[in-house]
């Protein structure tokens, strides 16, 4: 207990220091507005990657419609702030609740399906959500929903990203997370050991969906404009790529994947015309190469955690041995 407390305090201090430093750098203009934008995008993408990793990496369900839940959160929260004048935080929380509810509605029937069938159903659900939004005039249909107020600032993003990370960490390091992993490895065995496999999967799915919706809310109040096409299959695969590239089942991997794949395309802007013209080509080749040479992703299924860093210098720990990371 005491040890945990001490570790917790160290972590809080580090997080606060990082925040103060970042704030300072922004104020002094050392981190410019452009970099700040990228950091905010990174934060949103981290939350998305974390949420999808919970579903894919822990419950073992291949979900291909994650952007749809993001859309639910984005639209619902935007309606609350823009049309019903609710304050920001309650609105995005309501968005997350709506995302969780949508996750329950779709997860409840389809989580009984297996593998590829589940994948295609989530994909289908993603398309359905998109088409439905395209048909709702109240939110601008295909023309998009504009006039959303800017609420998502660096401070909020920082806070929510850290909270999301802690939340995910704590979920996966609890009996619930272990149940999810057990189910993903061998559903029959897990059931025989007393795990309600369906409930474990559904719980992971709902948390993941709610968190994606939360990220959607942040996204909407940052961009101030949302349109259905932004939440299509491409967006879902983009999030999926963060997760796979970071290492399926690795929470810190998801963070790494989201950071790298958000910053990389921006970084490529700095190069010459050739790279600019063939940016997407280069990007896809890089993913193929990365997958071939490191199919387990950047982190594999390992975790980077504070205690490892402190104890053994820069070595990673095998996941089984880790207790908890930042949280």
């Amino acid at each position: 207990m005491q040890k945990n407390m001490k570790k917790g305090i160290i972590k809080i201090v580090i997080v606060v220091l990082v925040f103060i430093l970042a704030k300072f750098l922004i104020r002094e203009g050392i981190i410019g507005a452009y970099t700040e934008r990228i950091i905010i995008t990174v934060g949103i993408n981290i939350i998305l990657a974390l949420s999808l990793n919970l579903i894919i990496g822990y419950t073992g369900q291949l979900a291909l419609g994650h952007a749809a839940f993001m859309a639910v959160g984005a639209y619902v929260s935007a309606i609350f702030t823009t049309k019903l004048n609710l304050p920001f935080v309650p609105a995005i929380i309501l968005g997350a609740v709506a995302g969780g509810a949508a996750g329950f509605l779709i997860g409840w029937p389809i989580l009984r399906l297996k593998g590829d069938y589940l994948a295609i159903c989530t994909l289908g659900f993603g398309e359905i959500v998109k088409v439905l939004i395209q048909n709702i005039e109240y939110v601008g249909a295909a023309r998009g929903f504009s006039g959303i107020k800017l609420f998502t600032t660096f401070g909020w993003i920082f806070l929510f990203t850290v909270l999301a990370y802690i939340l995910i960490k704590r979920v996966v390091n609890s009996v619930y997370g272990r149940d999810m992993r057990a189910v993903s490895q061998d559903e029959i065995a897990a059931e025989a050991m007393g795990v309600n496999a369906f409930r474990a999967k559904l719980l992971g799915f709902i948390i993941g969906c709610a968190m994606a919706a939360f990220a959607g809310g942040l996204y909407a109040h940052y961009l101030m404009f949302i349109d259905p096409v932004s939440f299509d299959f491409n967006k879902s695969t983009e999030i999926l790529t963060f997760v796979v590239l970071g290492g399926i089942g690795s929470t810190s991997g998801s963070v790494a994947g989201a950071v790298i794949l958000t910053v990389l395309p921006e970084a490529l802007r700095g190069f010459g015309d050739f790279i600019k013209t063939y940016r997407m080509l280069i990007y896809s080749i890089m993913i193929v190469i990365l997958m071939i040479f490191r199919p387990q992703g950047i982190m594999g299924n390992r975790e980077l955690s504070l205690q490892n860093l402190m104890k053994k210098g820069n070595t990673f720990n095998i996941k089984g041995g880790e207790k908890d990371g930042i949280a």
Partner: protein
Amino acid sequence: GSAAETATGTTASAATEAAAEGETIKIGAVVPLTGDVPALGESAKNGYQLAVDTMNANGGVLGKQVEIIFEDDENQPSKAPTVAQKLIAQDKVVGILGATNSKCSIPMGPICTQNKIPMVSPTSTNTKVTVEGGDYVFRACFIDPFQGEALANFAKDELGAQTAAVLYNMADDYSKGLAEAFMESYTAAGCSVVAEESYSTGESDFNAQLTNIKNENPDILVMTDFYSTVGLIAKQARTLGIEATFLGGDGWDSTDLVSIGGDAMEGAYYSVFYASDDTSEAVVNFKNSYAEAFDGKEADGYAALSYDAAMILMNAIENAGTTDSEKVVEALNSTDLDVVSGHVTYDESRNPIKPAIICTIKDGKAAYYTTVEPK
């Protein structure tokens, strides 16, 4: 953050910046070079480039050479503002051209206004672009309601069409926006829309919708999508035996319309920003120099409007006599300029007041038909 930035910008590196400023004037351009509409991006990029090159050849702006920096927004609303922010914060541009499509221009506008950088979008026709973008956002094209009205009036008055079928891309903001604008004006004018059908991006079979439309036997079939899809629809419509006259908007403006649609396009009408067979000096010059600069490529409406947008911005800077943004915006507001697509002045919502041109397809070629003046 931006105030502090300007402060450090002027104090810390005032000297170097002054030197840099002394050499060139930097303008940023946000174009969809990759993503789902790279063809538009290429036209836009060429248009901007040609305008800048032309200006530079004539001595530049304020006696300095203009440097244009292109950034790709992938036609994604989430990318456009980031890219604009980069141009403003990192490249220190004095004005931004773009974005090409409304869905990108809408979220990008507020960024420009916040940073007090004038923005001129060449082809974003959605009303909201300037409304929500704020005082620094301008455009070079007419807006959807105007084009819709122009088309509706043309259909009623010139074609004598009493019934119309509308077929649009429900997943595309432009296509849907224009279709709605048309329907509103058309029904307001006392005519009726007998069929309203839609499809989604990427589809290529329209037989189901067209069979329904055929049933209603409309006088005209309005298709508000881009040329490649329209060509395909037109073909299928004629094959199915639909005899209605085809009508569309600026998205049709490409030589590929006929290469895909073939004979089916014959006799169709569409509104554009300028007619490519216009023999006025401005148009001929533009077309020639475009072809010369880009391996004989034919300029389309996107290229022309992008060229215009760049000209409007550079002209405003010249008139302001400084790159100071407030002055430039003032100059933009009082624009009174002849460009390729006609004569431009701005209304109080920073939308250009200019006519729409109606073209028709004759012998497989686009031909000027008539001009519809703004009311």
